[in-house]
């Protein structure tokens, strides 16, 4: 029964794919599908972090800015002549550190809602990215670094492989480990989780750190693909990631959500962007359509749940 929860967004995705295949002959080709996967990979990683946060009934507005800061950090490290390993490590460290700040402000400083702490770091991280880079993109990264974003293993793009592996790991984390279960408990009823002896604060800090870390990972893919670190990378990406999570069937009230649903959500947004481009829909109209699709996809899920409830009673 549990997999049925993903059926709503999956259905939306399939309908979308069928419609686009009919209207554009190029859409349903291996090349294009792989392209969609690759283009969705950054949003998919951000959405995964966002998913963890939303399961705890929180929100992370800072993922887009963390992505920008990390992109600048990794590009500068590479430019400074540090090895790829060290640069990647720095990038992930920066992401995790900003995430930790989010968590610490929430649990140690007791700011009343993560909207506030992450709104603050969203601004701070973006500002730092601009300051450090001087406002300019840092281009021409070493060729050997670019494999992370731009190359493929046989025909499968490396970012796609990374996404699949990371999603699998987080699926295991959420369903098979104690910490994963605790995260659902915190979102379901934080007081009860605390009374159950779950170290709620520690888990929350880890959740926000993971969200930051995944934004760092997304930065590596993005800089590899673009061959440069843009300080403005990921502007508005937090909203795309939230959209993917919500389309994927997670509840804003916490306690509910799956990794695979979120993947479907991220792919749906990728398919949509790609399809609209193929159909030559202007960028202005694309945003309108995406807004409508968010409502449509979530509403299908609402309908599905209503039908299932009727059937049961």
């Amino acid at each position, binding site marked *: *029964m549990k997999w049925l929860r993903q059926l709503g967004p999956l259905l939306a995705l399939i309908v979308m794919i069928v419609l686009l295949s009919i209207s554009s002959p190029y859409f349903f080709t291996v090349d294009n599908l792989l392209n969609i996967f690759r283009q969705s990979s950054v949003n998919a990683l951000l959405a995964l972090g966002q998913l963890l946060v939303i399961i705890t009934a929180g929100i992370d507005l800072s993922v887009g800015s963390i992505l920008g800061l990390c992109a600048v950090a990794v590009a500068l490290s590479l430019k400074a002549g540090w090895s790829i390993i060290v640069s990647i490590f720095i990038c992930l460290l920066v992401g995790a550190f900003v995430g930790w700040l989010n968590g610490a402000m929430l649990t140690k400083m007791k700011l009343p809602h993560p909207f506030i702490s992450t709104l603050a770091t969203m601004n701070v991280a973006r500002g730092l990215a601009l300051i450090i880079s001087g406002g300019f993109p840092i281009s021409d990264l070493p060729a050997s670094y670019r494999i992370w974003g731009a190359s493929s293993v046989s025909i499968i793009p490396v970012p796609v492989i990374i996404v699949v592996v990371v999603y699998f790991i987080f699926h295991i984390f959420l369903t*098979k*480990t*104690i*910490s994963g*279960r*605790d995260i*659902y*408990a915190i979102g*379901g*009823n934080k*007081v*009860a*989780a*605390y*009374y*159950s*002896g*779950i*170290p709620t604060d520690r888990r929350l800090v880890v959740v926000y750190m993971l969200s930051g870390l995944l934004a760092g990972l997304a930065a590596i893919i993005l800089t590899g693909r673009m061959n440069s670190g843009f300080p403005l990378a990921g502007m508005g990406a937090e909203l795309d990631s939230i959209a993917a999570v919500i389309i994927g069937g997670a509840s804003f009230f916490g*306690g*509910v959500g799956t990794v695979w649903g979120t993947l479907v959500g991220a792919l749906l947004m990728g398919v949509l962007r790609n399809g609209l481009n193929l159909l030559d829909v202007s960028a202005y109209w694309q945003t309108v359509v995406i807004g409508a699709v968010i409502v449509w996809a979530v509403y299908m899920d609402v309908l599905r749940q209503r039908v299932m409830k009727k059937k*049961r*009673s």
Partner: protein
Amino acid sequence: MHVELKNISKSYTGNLVLNKVTMNVKPGQVHALIGENGAGKSTLMKILIGVETADHGDIFVNRKNKKWRTPHDARDAGIAMVFQELSLIPTLSVIENVFLGRLLRKQSGLLDWHEMKSQVEKIFEEIEFPLDAEQTVEELSIAQKQMVEIARALSQNARLIILDEPTSPLAERDAERLFKRIKKLSEKNVSIIYITHRLEQVFKIAHLITILRDGEFIRTCPVSDVDMQTVVRDMVGRELSEQFPDRTQKVNGSSKKAALRVEGATRSNEFNNVNFSVYNGEILGIAGLVGAGRTELAEAIFGVRRLDQGMVTVQGKIAKINSPAAAVKTGIGLIADDRKLKGLVPDASVHFNLNVATQRKFATRCGWRLQGQEIEASKRLIDGLQIKLQSLQQNAAGLSGGNQQKVAIGKTLNTDSSILIFDEPTRGIDVGAKREIYFLLRKLADEGAAIILVSSELEEILGLSDRIIVMCQGRITGEIVAANATQEKIMEMAVGIYESTKNGVTA
């Protein structure tokens, strides 16, 4: 008001929970509705007030067939209900909660706060319960919240008031005052439907009694026609033997090392210089009125609150307990008093809830869950506690009140703690299940656990404890061995200070 429920049937997810139930409520009568946990009492009442709809059957109000479309219709017809699960809005004030959905307006169309406040204050005066009407509800204790619910029902000038276990979080004293109020209402020809698991109350206030068992109507009759034993037999469908287990009395406190020792525990405004010990194999009862600081003390031992002063020793070692996580690690478990808030994750499955506190018991060292073992454990607990449910994956919120409480207990038992604090463990639980829980507590003690039982039900404290301490206004005012204890002695200790300082700092 004359209300008749005729042949009401209802099923959830294919399970029949009410089967052709009939109930006839007469004007000015107090009608008790009795049955085990999950018998369908709350469901029947939710149908009567229009929160749920029946699959079959009819509702007659003053002999007219009624079909409610919304709870508003029932309210407009003069029916009010106090729900078993608190249904207040925590962020709003007492006044707003009492007038929820029907705030009073002045002629100008603006809200008439002044009038609402004075009405609320009048109601609390009538039930002799002092409460600041402008406080927000989240600051209130569970007993106070309950009184707000009751005030809400009373304020509607209803002709039929349904009370679903209204006294379970209340102190004896406040319950008595509520009864007085109920008597007055029934003299004014208001009908009352009263649901409770405390059967002695039925005999005190009810005229008629209707008994349900497993969704079946068993009988309706005047209370004077039955005695406690028949009622219990009709409820559970068999004779129940002794309500309380035998004491084993093999414990001899002074000779052994205390499992838990509390010394000089103090938290300002909550409790003051509290000293006591519990030994393995013993049940220690903590009696007192609601508000005496017992829950606060229990929560401090469990690490939810920090002690200002004092020390806790566990199995002879000083324990630094500054969070529930640390308490569980030291082997202390708490069954909290407010299961909805502190006990359960309502929208998660029963299975999830039973295992949510186990930490690493069913996990490898690096935190992998052993799901097979978790399921085994859930099944054992459901058997052992006789939790009535449809499946392990069912949401906890869908269980009857008593069964939810059993899940909350099961969750803590699953942690294998050797020191167990039960804060009002049988609140809202039927006689049969209560008995099971009593025997379970005794069995746990016999197996070597040290048990602290916080309860406002004196019979329970007297029947189950080996030793009793009494708290009043945050202090221990007496200790007594169960063999020498009587209700009178305990009440004296529980109110002693209260009476003498009545004009001073009472809360």
